[in-house]
C-alpha cells in the first residue's frame, strides 16, 4: 500500500503494510468460488440477490355464493358428500350437476310421454 524506505538506515514512516491484501487474481477468484460452491456458497445473479416484488395476484372471485340449508336423510347427505369428494368437486358444482341431470331426466320423460 505504501512505499518502503529505500535506505535501511532510514526510519520507515509508511503505514503498516501488513494490512495490505493483494487483489485476487482471476484464477484465485475462480478457485475460491469453486471451493465455496462445494460448501454451498453459491453464486447468484443480481436479480436473485435483490428481492423482486411479486406481481399482485387478482383475488379469485367466488362462484357458489348462495348459502342454504337442506333437511335430508343422513345417508343421502353422506352420498352427496362422498360423491363430491370422489370427483373432487365443490359442493356447489355437485349440486349443479345433480340439478342438470334431474332436469335432463325430466326432459327425457316428457319427450317419452309425448
Amino acid at each position: 500500500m505504501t512505499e518502503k524506505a529505500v535506505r535501511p538506515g532510514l526510519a520507515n514512516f509508511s503505514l503498516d503494510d501488513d494490512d495490505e491484501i493483494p487483489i485476487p487474481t482471476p484464477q484465485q477468484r475462480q478457485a475460491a468460488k469453486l471451493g465455496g460452491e462445494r460448501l454451498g456458497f453459491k453464486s447468484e445473479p443480481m436479480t436473485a440477490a435483490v428481492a423482486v416484488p411479486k406481481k399482485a395476484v387478482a383475488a379469485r372471485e367466488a362462484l357458489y355464493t348462495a348459502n342454504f340449508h337442506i333437511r335430508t336423510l343422513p345417508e343421502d347427505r353422506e352420498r352427496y358428500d362422498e360423491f363430491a369428494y370422489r370427483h373432487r368437486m365443490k359442493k356447489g358444482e355437485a349440486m349443479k350437476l345433480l340439478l342438470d341431470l334431474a332436469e335432463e331426466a325430466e326432459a327425457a320423460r316428457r319427450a317419452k310421454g309425448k
Partner: protein
Amino acid sequence: MPVITLLSPKGGVGKTTTALLLATELSAQGADVILIDADPNFPLSKWAALPGKPTNIEVIEEIDEETIIDTIGDARKRAQYVIVDLEGRASGRVTNALLVSNLALIPMQGSALDSNEAARAFRNVRQVSNHRDRPLKFAAVLAKTQASSRLWPRELKQIIAGMEEAGIPMIGTALADRGAFRALFSFGGTLATLKDKDVGSLETARANAAAFTLDVLHILNEKVTA
C-alpha cells in the same frame, strides 16, 4: 486499511449488531470507518438514516457479487477501518468479500443449528484462505449470550469446548443480548449518544462493546503465519 468481514450462513445471529458496535466504537476512538452493507435488506443504511450517525462513519450499500471486491478495495483507500456486513446466507458474495478481508468474524449463538452453520462458514474461510496470497485471520464471536457467563447453557459451553478443541480462535469478550444494542436500530446514533431514560444498563452495554472492540483489535494486530 484493515477490512473486517462479518459472515454466517444463518440469519439473526448478530452480524449486523456486531458490525455496528465495532464501527461505532472505532469511530468513537477517532477512526474513519466505512461500513459496507451487503445485506439486501440494508439494515445498516436504515440505521444511517436515523439521527445521530457519527460523521466519520460512512455506510455504503453493495450487494453485487462481482463488484464487492472493488467496492471493498476503494473503501480501504478512504477509511482507517472497513467493516463488511454480509447477509445471513451462503452466497458467492461471501467468498469474494473474504478474498480481500483481513479478519473474518463469525458470530454465533449457543445452539446446535448456529454452530453447524458457523462450522460451514469456518470451512469456507479456510478454503478462501488457501487460495489467497496471505492467510485470512478469523475468529468466532459469541453473540446474544446471557450477560453472565455463569448463566450460559450447557450447550453453549460444549460448543465453546468444541471450538477450542478444533483450534478455532474466539473473541474473548462475548456480546450479550442487550436492549441497548437493539436500541441503536430504533433510536439511531451510538451507545455514547443513547440516554439512560431510553434504555437500561447502558453503562454495562458500553463496557461490553468497548471490551469486545479491544479484543477484535488485538486479534487483528496479531501476526499470522501461512
